[in-house]
C-alpha cells in the first residue's frame, strides 16, 4: 500500500548528493557517447602499424593499442555498446519480467506456481553462467548477448512485479474494477502496471548497472561484443597482455566502465533514499 501514491518525492540532501554524483559520472560516459556519434579523434577501428603502443601524448591523449589504434577514440565508441546493450537488455528483461510477474501475482494458484518454478530454476544458475552458456549455444554477437542477459535478468523483474501485484490487487479500486467486469488484461495493463513503476524504477537502474557488469565480463571472455568493434571488456582483455608495458590500455577503459556502473548505482541509491523517505 506504501507504493500506491508517491507522487511527491521529497529530496533529502543525501538523495541530492547521490543524484549529483551519479549524474556527473554517468554524464562523462554519456557525453563521450554522444560526441562519438558525430566525431572521434581517429576512426576507432583504423589500424596503424607504425604507431603501436604509444604512451599517452598530445596526439593520442589515452595512448594507442597494439594495432596502433587510438585508445581515446575506442573508449568513446565503446561507450556506445555499453549503453546500448544495457538499455536493450533491461528492456527485454522488463518486458519478459512484467509479462510473467504480473499475471503470476494477479491470478495466483497454479499459473503462479508454474511461472515461479521456471523463474526460480533460472535464478538457480549463477547469472553469468547462464548468460555464457546461452551465448555459447547461439554464438557470440551483440544481439545474442542482449537476449541472453535479458533472459537472465527477467526473473528479478518478475519477482518485483509479482510481489507488487499481489499487494495492489487487494486494493479497493482493483476489486471494484473486477466487480464491474473490467477484463483482467485491462486491469493488469492499465491499473496495476502503472502502480508498479515506483518499484520497478530502482530495479531498472540497478538492472542497467548489473547488466553492464555482465556484458563487460562476457566481452572480456570474448563472448560479447566482437572485434574490431570496441567494448570495455574486450579492450581490457586485449590489454592484459600488455599490462606491464602499456598500463594505459587498462586504466582508461576500466575508468570509463566503473564511471558508468557507479553513476547508475548512485542514481539508484538516490531513488531508494528519496522513495523510501517520500513514502513515509
Amino acid at each position, binding site marked *: 500500500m506504501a507504493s500506491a501514491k508517491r507522487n511527491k518525492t521529497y529530496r533529502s540532501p543525501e538523495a541530492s548528493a547521490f543524484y549529483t554524483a551519479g549524474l556527473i559520472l554517468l554524464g562523462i560516459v554519456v557525453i563521450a557517447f554522444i560526441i562519438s556519434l558525430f566525431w572521434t579523434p581517429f576512426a576507432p577501428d583504423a589500424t596503424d602499424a607504425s604507431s603501436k603502443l604509444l604512451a599517452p601524448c598530445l596526439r593520442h591523449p589515452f595512448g594507442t593499442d597494439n594495432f596502433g589504434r587510438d585508445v581515446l577514440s575506442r573508449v568513446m565508441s565503446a561507450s556506445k555498446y555499453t549503453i546500448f546493450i544495457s538499455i536493450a537488455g533491461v528492456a527485454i528483461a522488463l518486458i519478459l519480467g512484467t509479462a510473467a510477474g504480473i499475471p503470476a501475482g494477479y491470478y495466483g494458484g497454479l499459473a503462479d506456481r508454474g511461472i515461479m518454478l*521456471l523463474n526460480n530454476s*533460472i535464478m*538457480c544458475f*549463477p*547469472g553469468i553462467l547462464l548468460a*555464457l552458456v546461452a551465448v555459447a549455444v547461439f554464438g557470440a554477437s551483440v544481439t545474442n548477448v542482449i537476449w541472453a542477459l535479458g533472459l537472465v535478468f527477467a526473473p528479478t523483474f518478475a519477482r518485483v512485479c509479482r510481489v507488487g501485484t499481489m499487494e495492489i490487487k487487494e486494493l479497493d479500486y482493483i476489486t471494484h474494477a473486477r466487480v464491474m467486469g473490467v477484463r483482467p488484461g485491462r486491469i493488469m495493463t492499465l491499473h496495476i502496471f502503472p502502480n508498479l513503476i515506483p518499484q520497478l524504477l530502482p530495479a531498472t537502474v540497478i538492472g542497467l548497472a548489473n547488466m553492464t557488469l555482465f556484458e563487460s565480463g562476457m566481452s572480456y571472455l570474448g563472448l560479447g561484443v566482437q572485434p574490431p568493434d570496441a567494448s570495455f571488456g574486450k579492450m581490457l582483455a586485449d590489454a592484459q597482455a600488455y599490462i606491464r608495458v602499456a598500463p594505459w590500455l*587498462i586504466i582508461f577503459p576500466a575508468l570509463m566502465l566503473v564511471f558508468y556502473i557507479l553513476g547508475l548505482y548512485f542514481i539508484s541509491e538516490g531513488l531508494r533514499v528519496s522513495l523510501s523517505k517520500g513514502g513515509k
Partner: protein
Amino acid sequence: MQSKAGYLIGKTVELILTLLVVSLLVFAAFSIIPGDTARVMLGPDASESQVELLRAEMGLDKPLATRYLTWLASLITFDPGKSYAYNVSVGELIAQRLPVTIGMSVIAMIMVIIISYPLAVLSARKPGRLGDQVCSVIGHVLFAIPPYVASLLLILLAGSIFSLLTVGNYVRPSDDFAGYIACLLLPSFAVALPKIAMSFKFLRSSIIEQKTADYVRTSKSHGLSDLKILIRHVLPNSNVSSITIISIILSDILGGSLIVEQVFNLPGLGRLLLSAISRRDFPLLSGIVFYLAFVTVLLYFISDIASSLADPRIRLK
C-alpha cells in the same frame, strides 16, 4: 498454520521440481548447440570416416529422449559419464578443479565476513559520521568494480609495486598448503571486493534499523553498553536475513570466480567450463552447469530452512 514438517516437505518437493526443470533447461540448451563433438575432437585434418567412427563410439547417433534419460540417470548417481574431450570421468575432472573454486569461494567468503562485519558495526554505531560516510562511499565504488577489472588492477599493483604474491602460479594444496592459500589470496580478494561492499551495506542498514527497535531502546535504558546490545540483540536479529544474504553472496562469488580464474590462469571450474564450451564437451559441460546450479539450489534451500528455523514467522508466508 503450516507445520514444520509440512513446510519441509513443501520445500523439498520444490527443490526436486526445480532441479528437474534445471536439468531439462541444461539438456535442452546443449542439444541445440551447433558443432559436432567428434569433429572437434579430431580436428580439421581428420577424414569423414574417422569422424563417423568416433561419433558412433560416443553414442551421439542415438535419439534425444534416450540421451536425456541416460544423462539424468547418470546425474542422479553422480556419475555423468566420461568427458568427450579429456576421456576421463566428469566427476573426476570436476573434483580435480574443485580445490581452486572452493578454495577461492571460502577465502573470499571469509574475507567478506571479517572485513564487512566489523566495518558495518563500527559504521552503524554513529551513522552519518565522517568514518561512516567514507566507508559508504568506498563501498559504493568497490561495488561498481567488476571482479575481473579488480583482478587486473591488483595484478598491475602486485606486479609493479609489491611483487609479494605470485601471479598465475597455482600450487596444489597437497604439495604445499600455505602456497596454495597464498596463490589464491589475490584472486579471492578480487572476487570478494564487491561482496564486501554489498554485505557491508546490508549489515549496516539492518543494524541501524534494529537499533531503533523498542527492545533495543529498552535494553539501552537498562544501561547495557552499545557493543553488548549490538552483539546480544542486534546482530542475532539481523542474522535471520544474514543467512539469506550469505547464500546470495556465495552464489555470486561462485559466478565471479569463474571469470577471475581466467584472469589469474587458475585451473578451476571456470576454465574447465570455458574449455568444455569451446570443445563441445557435452557430458562435461552439462555436468558442470548442472552441479553448479545444484549447489546454488541447495544453498537457497538450506538458507530457507535455516531462516525458518530461526524465525518461525517465515513459514507463515
